[in-house]
C-alpha cells in the first residue's frame, strides 16, 4: 500500500505543480487608479529624468505605471493586449504605424476624449489624422540631416557650404575619399528603418510615394548604391541600422553621415556639424517626420473616467508649459513653432534642424494604409540596389 500511496503522490505532485503554477493568482484586472503608459524608450529606466517626468503628469488621485519596450515591439504588443482587453491607457506609437493601428481598431479618437490638439504644426500632426479623425498627438519630431566631420572635410579641402545638390555632394564625398578618409555612412537595413533613411533621397529626386518604382525613385537608388560600389560608403550599410551607422561615423574615419537629430548631443560632443540633406537639383530635400504620437488605445470594456484621466496625461505633457520639457528630455523638436523657437534659443544645437523639421513630410499622411506596401517595395528595391 505504501508504495501505491507514494506512487499516487509522485504522480500527482508534478501535475499539481503545473496546475498550481497555472491556477493560482486569480484575475488581476488593471487597477482603476493606475494609468498604464507604454513608450518605446526602454533606455530610460525607473527614476531617470524621462520616467520621473512622465509620472509627474499623473492626474490627481492616479499614479502612472510606465513601461518602455523596443520600438519594433510596441505595435504588436498593443495588438495582443487590445485583443485580450488588457490594453494600456496611453501609448506612444511611432508615426508610420498610425494608419495600421487605426485600421485594426487599436486606438481611439483623442479629441473626443478631451485632448487639446490646437496650435500644433500640420506637417508633423499629419500621420496622426486618419480619415479626418485625430487619433494621436505628436508632441514633437526628429529629423534627418547630413552630419560631417569638419576635420576630415578641412583636410580634404571641402567647404560644406558648397554642398547644395547631389552633384556637389558627390564631388565632396569623392574629394574626401581621395584625401584618404572614408566617405559616408547611412542605414540601409531591411525594413522601415532603412526606408526612413532612404526617403530624403527619394523625395529629393522628386519621386512620389504612390509611384515607388518611378524613374526618379531609381535615380535615388543609384545615388546610394553608387556610393557603395565606389567604396565611398561601407558595404555594411545594407545591414547597418541607424545606430550602427552612427557607430561607424564615431570612429572619426568618415567624412559624412546621414543620421537623425537624436544624435545632435553626441555630435556636439565630438565637434561634428550638420547641414540639411540636399535635394537632387538643389534646395533642402524633404525628410520624413520622425517620432511618436501619444495615443489612447481601445478598451473593449468601456472605462470612461479612466480614459479622461489618460487624456489628461497627454494634455499635461503637451501643454505649452510642458511641451519644451517633453521634447528636451527626449531630444526632439517641439511640434509647435513658438516652443520650437524657444528650444533653439536655449540650446543652439537645434538651430540647423529647424528648417528640416518645418519642411518634413509625414510618411503616411497622403497614402495612409497603403504605406505598408509602399514601404515594403521601397525596402526591397533599396536592398537590391545596395547589394548589387
Amino acid at each position, binding site marked *: 500500500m505504501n508504495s501505491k500511496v507514494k*506512487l499516487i503522490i509522485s504522480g500527482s505532485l508534478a501535475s499539481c505543480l503545473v496546475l498550481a503554477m497555472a491556477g493560482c493568482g486569480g484575475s488581476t484586472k488593471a487597477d482603476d487608479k493606475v494609468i498604464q503608459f507604454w513608450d518605446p524608450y526602454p533606455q530610460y529606466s525607473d527614476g531617470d529624468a524621462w520616467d520621473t517626468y512622465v509620472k509627474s503628469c499623473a492626474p490627481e488621485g492616479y499614479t502612472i505605471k510606465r513601461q518602455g519596450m523596443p520600438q519594433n515591439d510596441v505595435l504588436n504588443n498593443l495588438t495582443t493586449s487590445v485583443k485580450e482587453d488588457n490594453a494600456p491607457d496611453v501609448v506612444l506609437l511611432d508615426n508610420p504605424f498610425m494608419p495600421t493601428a487605426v485600421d485594426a481598431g487599436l486606438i481611439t479618437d483623442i479629441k473626443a476624449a478631451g485632448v487639446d490638439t490646437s496650435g500644433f504644426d500640420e506637417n508633423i500632426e499629419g500621420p496622426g489624422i486618419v480619415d479626418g479623425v485625430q487619433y494621436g498627438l505628436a508632441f514633437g519630431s526628429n529629423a534627418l540631416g547630413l552630419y560631417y566631420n569638419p576635420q576630415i572635410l578641412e583636410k580634404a579641402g571641402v567647404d560644406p557650404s558648397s554642398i547644395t545638390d547631389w552633384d556637389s555632394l558627390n564631388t565632396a564625398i569623392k574629394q574626401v575619399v581621395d584625401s584618404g578618409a572614408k566617405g559616408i555612412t547611412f542605414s540601409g537595413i531591411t525594413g522601415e528603418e532603412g526606408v526612413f533613411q532612404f526617403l530624403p533621397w527619394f523625395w529629393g529626386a522628386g519621386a512620389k510615394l504612390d509611384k515607388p518604382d518611378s524613374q526618379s525613385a531609381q535615380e535615388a537608388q543609384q545615388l546610394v548604391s553608387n556610393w557603395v560600389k565606389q567604396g565611398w560608403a561601407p558595404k555594411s550599410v545594407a545591414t547597418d541600422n541607424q545606430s550602427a551607422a552612427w557607430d561607424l561615423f564615431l570612429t572619426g574615419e568618415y567624412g559624412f553621415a546621414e543620421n537623425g537629430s537624436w544624435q545632435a548631443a553626441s555630435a556636439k560632443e565630438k565637434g561634428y556639424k550638420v547641414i540639411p540633406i540636399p535635394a537632387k537639383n538643389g534646395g533642402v530635400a524633404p525628410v520624413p517626420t520622425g517620432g511618436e504620437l501619444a495615443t489612447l488605445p481601445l478598451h473593449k470594456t468601456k472605462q470612461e473616467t479612466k480614459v479622461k484621466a489618460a487624456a489628461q496625461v497627454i494634455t499635461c505633457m503637451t501643454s505649452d508649459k510642458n511641451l519644451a520639457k517633453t521634447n528636451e528630455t527626449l531630444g526632439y523638436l517641439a511640434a509647435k513653432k513658438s516652443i520650437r523657437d524657444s528650444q533653439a534659443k536655449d540650446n543652439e544645437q537645434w538651430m540647423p534642424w529647424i528648417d528640416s523639421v518645418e519642411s518634413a513630410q509625414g510618411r503616411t499622411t497622403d497614402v495612409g494604409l497603403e504605406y505598408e506596401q509602399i514601404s515594403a517595395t521601397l*525596402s526591397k528595391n533599396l536592398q537590391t540596389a545596395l*547589394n548589387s
Partner: protein
Amino acid sequence: MKSIAQHTQQSTVARKKTIAALGFIAPLIIYFIAFYVAPLIQNISMSLHHFTRKSFVTGEAPFVGFDIYKELLSNTEFWITLRQTLLFVVLSIIFQYSIGLLLAVFFNQNFKLSNFLRGLFLVPWLLPPMISGTTWQWIMDADNGILNKLIVALGGNPIWWLQSSHSIWAVIIANIWLGIPFNLVILYSGLQNINNDLYEAASLDGCGPWKRFWNITFPLLKPVTLICLLLGFVYTLKTVDIIWIMTQGSGTSQTLATWSYAMAFGKGHSSTIQYSQASAVGTILILIALVFACVYLWAQRQEEQ
C-alpha cells in the same frame, strides 16, 4: 505449463504496471495538452482563416480553407526559400554533428584540463543570441571585419559576407558555431556510456584507434546519433535569432522560419503583419519535421533489426 493462478497473478502484475506507468506519465500528458496541443490547433486554425491585424483583434476572421496554402505554394519565393532552408539545415547539421563528434571523441580521452575546456565550450550558449549574432556580424564585416583581415593576411581576397547572395554562407557558419556545444555535450555523454572494457578487448585484438572508432564507438553511438541529428534538424529548422540579427533574413539567408517570423510580426521586409501566412509556413515547417521524424523512425527500426 503455467497454472491459472500464475496467469492471474501475471495479469495482475501487468495491470499494476500499467497503472503505475499511467501515474508516472500523467503529469506529462496534462502538461502536453495544455501547452502544446492547444497552440498547435490554434496554429492550424489560423492558417485556415484569413487573419489580418484587424480580424485578429476582433476575432472575426473568415474561413478560407486551404486558400492560403495554395497561394503560398504557387509563390516562387516559397520554393526559393524552401531550397535555402534545406541548404541551411543540411549543411549546418553535417558540420555541427561531425565537428561535435570529433571533439567529443577527443575530449573523451581525459587529458589534463579536459573537463574544464569542455565546459568552456558551452559558453557560447550562455550568450543571448542578440549578442552573439551582432558579434558575428562585426566579425564578418566586409570592410573592417576581423575575418576578412585574416583572409587578406593569408593572401586571399576579402569576402562580402553579408551581401544578399553570400549571406546564407555567413549564417551557416555562425549557426554551426552555435550548434557545436549541443552536439558535443550529447555525444560526449553518449560516449561516457560506452564500456571501456570493449576498447581494451579491441586493443588486445590489435585494433588501431581508427578501427576502434568505426567498429565500436560509432555503432554504439547510433541511438545517441539519431537523437542528436533529429533534434539538430528540428532546432536548425526553426532557427530565427541568429539569422535575423545578422541579416534580417535578407537575400539568400531567408529560411522558412525567418520568413514566418517576419510575417508573424510584420518585421523586416514584411511590413504588413500576415498571421495566416505565417501560420501556414509554420504548419509546413511542422510537416517537414514530420517527414524527417518518419526517417528517424525508419532508421531506428533498421537499427533494432
